[in-house]
């Protein structure tokens, strides 16, 4: 595996007459927790979808774990875990069954799957509710199980697309703790968010994108110092003239 876990080179993605991503280039190092920040519609989810092979780039190239996503999608899928923005869960399965299903889809050995399932359910505070059908879960619980489903197979690279959106503060802090543990385990993580405090709290580096373009890149503190602002939210306002959640 090469040094950079993820390489995006001059990526452009157009949907008919809309340019969602416009000439984006960036590199994410192995073991780095990289935040992709921007308002809704900035192109964050499109980048994630291209990285995991769901969308073909209009131009440019992307590689994940050293594999070209377009040429070797199966190799890439074996390396990654993706937590989609909207909780994609089977409501008629229990929490545990949802997690085990996705472990099986990654062809995990049974004993490892059982061990990881227990561990992750415990960490996310869902052990007691694991036997209940997900259709009966609250929104926050669904989002937590959504995250576990993405990580049960212990992926080297994780794409977490707005994992804490619409979560209550208690669930959000549980997820933050969980993401910090991923960092400790030396996993490469791309975290998309429009919560600036989340990025400041968790990320090694952040890339701020707006209208499909990368407008700033650096460590949160470095960016705050560079633009002489109090926080990343103010950095974004200075760069774009808008608030991130407008």
């Amino acid at each position, binding site marked *: 595996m090469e040094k950079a876990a993820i390489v995006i080179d001059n990526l452009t993605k157009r949907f008919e007459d809309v340019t969602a991503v416009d000439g984006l280039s960036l590199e994410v190092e192995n073991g780095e927790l990289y935040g992709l920040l921007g308002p809704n519609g900035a192109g964050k989810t499109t980048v994630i979808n291209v990285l995991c092979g769901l969308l073909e780039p209009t131009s440019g190239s992307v590689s994940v774990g050293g594999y070209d996503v377009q040429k070797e999608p199966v190799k890439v899928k074996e390396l990654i875990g993706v937590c989609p923005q909207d909780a994609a869960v089977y409501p008629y399965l229990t929490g545990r069954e949802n997690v085990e*299903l996705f472990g099986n889809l990654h*062809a995990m050995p049974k004993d490892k799957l059982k061990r990881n399932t227990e561990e992750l359910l415990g960490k996310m505070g869902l052990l007691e509710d694991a036997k209940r059908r997900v259709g009966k879960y609250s929104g926050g619980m669904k989002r937590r199980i959504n995250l576990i489903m993405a990580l049960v197979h212990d992926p080297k690279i994780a794409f977490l697309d707005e994992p804490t959106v619409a979560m209550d503060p208690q669930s959000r802090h549980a997820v933050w703790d969980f993401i910090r543990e991923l960092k400790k385990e030396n996993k490469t993580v791309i975290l998309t968010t429009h919560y600036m405090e989340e990025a400041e709290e968790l990320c090694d580096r952040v890339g701020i994108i707006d209208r499909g373009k990368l407008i700033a890149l650096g460590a949160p503190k470095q960016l705050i110092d560079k633009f002489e602002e109090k926080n990343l939210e103010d950095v974004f306002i200075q760069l774009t003239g808008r608030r991130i959640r407008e």
Partner: protein
Amino acid sequence: MNLQRVFSLVKKDLKKMIREPAILFLIILFPVIMTLAFGASFGAIGGTQSATYEIGIVNMNSEAYKEWSEHFIGNLTDTEILKIKDYVDNETAQADLIQGNIQAVLLIPENFGESSNSFWKAPSESRLWVNTTVHLYVDSGSMFATQAIQPIIQQILAVTVYGAQPSSTARPIQIGSPSLVEASRLTQFDYFAPGLFAFAAIFLTMIVAQSFTEDREKGLLRRINITPTTPTEFMTSQTISNMLAAISQVAVVFTMAFLVGYRPLGGAISLIFAFVIVTIFSLCCVGFGLITAAISKSPGAATGIAFIFIMPQMFLGTFVSVGLSSVAQSAGRFVPAYYVTDALTSLFLRGAPISSPTILLDITVLTIVSVMVLLLGIVLFRKYGKA
């Protein structure tokens, strides 16, 4: 192909079938209720084979040789399938037939006895026979009466006049074209039952269409697409789960039909064949479901669009087609369900062997069509349905 992935997806689908009330209803409860309802309505419940047809008889036989017509009427009565009502003239009998009080009118002609007697005097010399015709009027509003009464009367007439196993096809007494169906032991439900198997399985189309559009809407297809699961593994799992659903439907329909007194011809081999042919048919239903999902924007739309495939098959390819015109019945050959019902009818109702040309042709056509529809469904869904 990784079997761990395939079986985990099959397991997931089977759990859905059991846990989602709407799907459980369509796969299991609907066939149960349908079979019981038809069994209760069309004479199978209780296992009784008692008289179901009431026919009026106008006996115009002359005094000479009157014992022939009395013997014929006695044999008709003894069947316990026909309830005999005597009429003095044709007009009164026809009036009752029009009002639906009876299902048929039989006119025994004046020279019936004379004709019968002439046959027995010289069985091999047809030039000496006195030829005559027994007129039969059947209620055209009753599809069962039109199908069943004539063969019954034909059979009893043959036994009465010529003996049980007549050797010659020439006869002095005619009653139209006899049917080869041994209708004397059949209830109305026996005619319906072969079509019930295809009828139950047809709704798999709707289940598949709803399932795919729902999973697409919730982002679950995209999520599976991000795992190393291949399209072949995914489609194999879908096919296996729907085959298992079809098998359970056959088991449910047959069990319920058996409980209400249905006893098809052919024994265990016929039953195994029913499982096989409905399983093949399930491939076709998965294909139609995928085509539906490919063109449907939402699960609600999929439910409606699925009926484009369900309705023609229901009307032209199952028991419903029994009451349709000959043109409509011919049109049935264009729907896959027809071949399921036709093969099972030959097997269960006519007692044909599995190796008979009709059944072999049915299963060949069904297999080819089902595989083609399934492949078309996969191609269309991959091209248009994944967004």
